[in-house]
């Protein structure tokens, strides 16, 4: 059965401030959805609330992945259920090598006693790193420590490829990438497109969407999806900015949670 992912009336607050005001979105396996929107409109909050970041309190709504309610699960369980979030600001973890980390993540999905063999793991990791044109030494570097902005993003994509998720949320995966890296990352994502995988791509730039063709584009303002359309919507936003959307909808301040 193709992947079914449904966000229904999702509301979330941080430190008592309501940020998400009711998000509705359905993603089917094989689809790529893009979310665009000005700064501070709740895009990353949506990503964090889906993943279950402890600071974000979900106050209403449901998130169903293949019949399972993600909101009832812990962060690690959501990941094992098939959700992947490529973060806008990935953490740095000193002393833990990239490869030890990834192997732990893979083994967390396997039963005890059925861990991936070291040889097989290394072969897989080296293969994926090659696809992403990453220097093999990054396998032995401490997780994200001292990585440049672009290297961190590439490392997020490496993790996505290794973990084979069902729903991939990428939060500004294009920020900090030079044009070559952008193509490499986009190729990585495109190679992962399949009937049983859906994508939600948060970006500010049409440029990324030239390489990863979205099926749907949504605009987020004030903690809601205020407009949806096809790829042409992204192009118009790129050319004209957001003012026309605001005018159309009578929005003065598009941000959310500001006083």
């Amino acid at each position, binding site marked *: 059965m193709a992947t079914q992912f449904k966000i229904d009336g999702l509301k979330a607050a941080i430190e008592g401030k309501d940020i998400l005001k009711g998000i509705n979105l359905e993603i089917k396996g094989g689809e790529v959805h893009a979310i665009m929107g000005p700064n501070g409109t709740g895009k990353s909050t949506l990503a964090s609330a889906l993943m279950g970041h402890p600071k974000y309190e979900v106050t209403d709504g449901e998130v169903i992945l293949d019949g399972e309610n993600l909101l009832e699960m*812990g*962060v*690690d369980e959501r*990941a094992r259920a098939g959700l992947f979030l490529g*973060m806008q600001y990935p953490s740095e973890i000193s*002393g833990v090598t990239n490869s030890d980390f*990834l192997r732990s993540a893979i083994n*967390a999905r396997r039963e005890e006693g059925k861990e991936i063999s070291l040889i097989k793991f290394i072969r897989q990791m080296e293969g994926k790193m090659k696809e992403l044109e990453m220097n093999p030494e990054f396998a032995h570097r401490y997780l994200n420590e001292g990585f440049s902005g672009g290297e961190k993003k590439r490392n997020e994509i490496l*993790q996505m490829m290794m973990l084979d998720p069902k729903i991939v949320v990428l939060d500004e995966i294009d920020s900090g990438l030079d044009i070559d890296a952008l193509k490499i990352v986009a190729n990585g994502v495109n190679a992962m497109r399949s009937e049983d995988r859906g994508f939600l791509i948060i970006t500010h730039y049409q440029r990324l969407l030239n390489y990863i063709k979205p099926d749907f584009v949504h605009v987020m303002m004030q903690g809601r999806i205020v407009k949806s359309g096809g790829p042409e919507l992204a192009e118009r936003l790129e050319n004209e900015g957001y003012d026309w959307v605001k005018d159309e909808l009578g929005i003065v301040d598009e941000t959310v949670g500001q006083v």
Partner: protein
Amino acid sequence: MSTQLSTPVNRQTVSALSQSKGEPAWLEELRIKGAELAETLEWPTPEKVRISRWNLAAIGNHTSQTRISSVSELPSSASELAAGAQAGLVVQRNSTSVHSQLSAELAAKGVIFTDLETAAREHGDLVQKYLFQVVPQDENKLTALQSAIWNGGVFLYVPKNVEIELPLQALFYSDDAGAVFAPRVLLVAENHSRVTYVDNVVSEHGEGAESLAKQSIVEVIVKPGAHVRYATVHHMSANVIDLTVRRAVVENDGIIEWVIGDLHDGHTMSDTQSLLKGKGANSDAKVISIGTNSQQMSLTTGAVHFGRNTESSMVTRAVMKDQATAIINGITKIEKGATKSNGVQAEKVLMLSPKARGDANPILLIDEDDVKAGHAASVGQVNPEQVYYLMSRGISKKDAERLIIHGFLAPVVSEIPIDAVKEQLQRLLERKLEG
């Protein structure tokens, strides 16, 4: 303050002890001197830890143990730690050295590796020349008392230009909480020699064992151009108080490297210093520690720069659980005249419990202008953002925290010179962290 020791230490008792060991007269005199000094001197007073409140009087009684011809005669927990020693091995059980072995190849090169008691009888001139020179008897009650009652121990002598590839190993093992356990290590590396020495200090006392105050002192002499790597892992049970002083004197262009695993379960005073006497002398100290239950620890690393162009680096990483307390001192002292010297230190503490305490005290004492010195100290908790990040990849909370804690200790663990010791240390870390 007078302390009623569990076994009397005075002129008569140490004289009798020395004679029972068949020691040369000079050593008997030194033991007597130590006993007499101990009567008047005070216990050391490390920062913020009142060690005089610990049961320091419980030094045990002098016992004896039969020699063994192979480590397989030891209980398996101990023999495992000595397995795989190829170049040389010295084993002490309770108050007595029970085994020593050195490869024929190294013996032929003039290397001496045996217990210190045997060395004092068989290589008296050498031992007399260096013993108590780096850690003087009259410094405090601990140095005096230990110089009077020490037993077993190790003497390692590496002649000029001899480079030893494989590590020399020692095992200090206590399975009788009533026995004096006071190993003393004397290591002399002659000009341009090179050696790695590793010891394990362990106990197996069982439930409800009485207190034992274990005292050990390590003296290292690094002659010009010599390079000594000293790795040590302490992990005795909670009834044992571990008092350890380690000190190296480093001459011109010599190098001392310390790798210290203070994984003991009981109260601990661990004091490791390098005296950089010669120009171009170099010291590198790495310490890891895990505090559990209500143990109290005073962990000090120090480097004193006397020579020009001397360099020191000190790194301590400690993880504190439960109600454990650790006071971690890093002391970089640069004397007048030690121009172009550089001393850096970093102490980091990771707190896993709100009831634990960890203080990091970097202390820089600099009497020379033309130098560099740096320090960093931090006390923190496991970062919840990092836990979230790892969990977002499917790793359980428990495993995420474990990865982060091991990562915190990795800069020291990865430096352990011997794989077997590294693995053993990993197991101990695991045990102390899980337990």
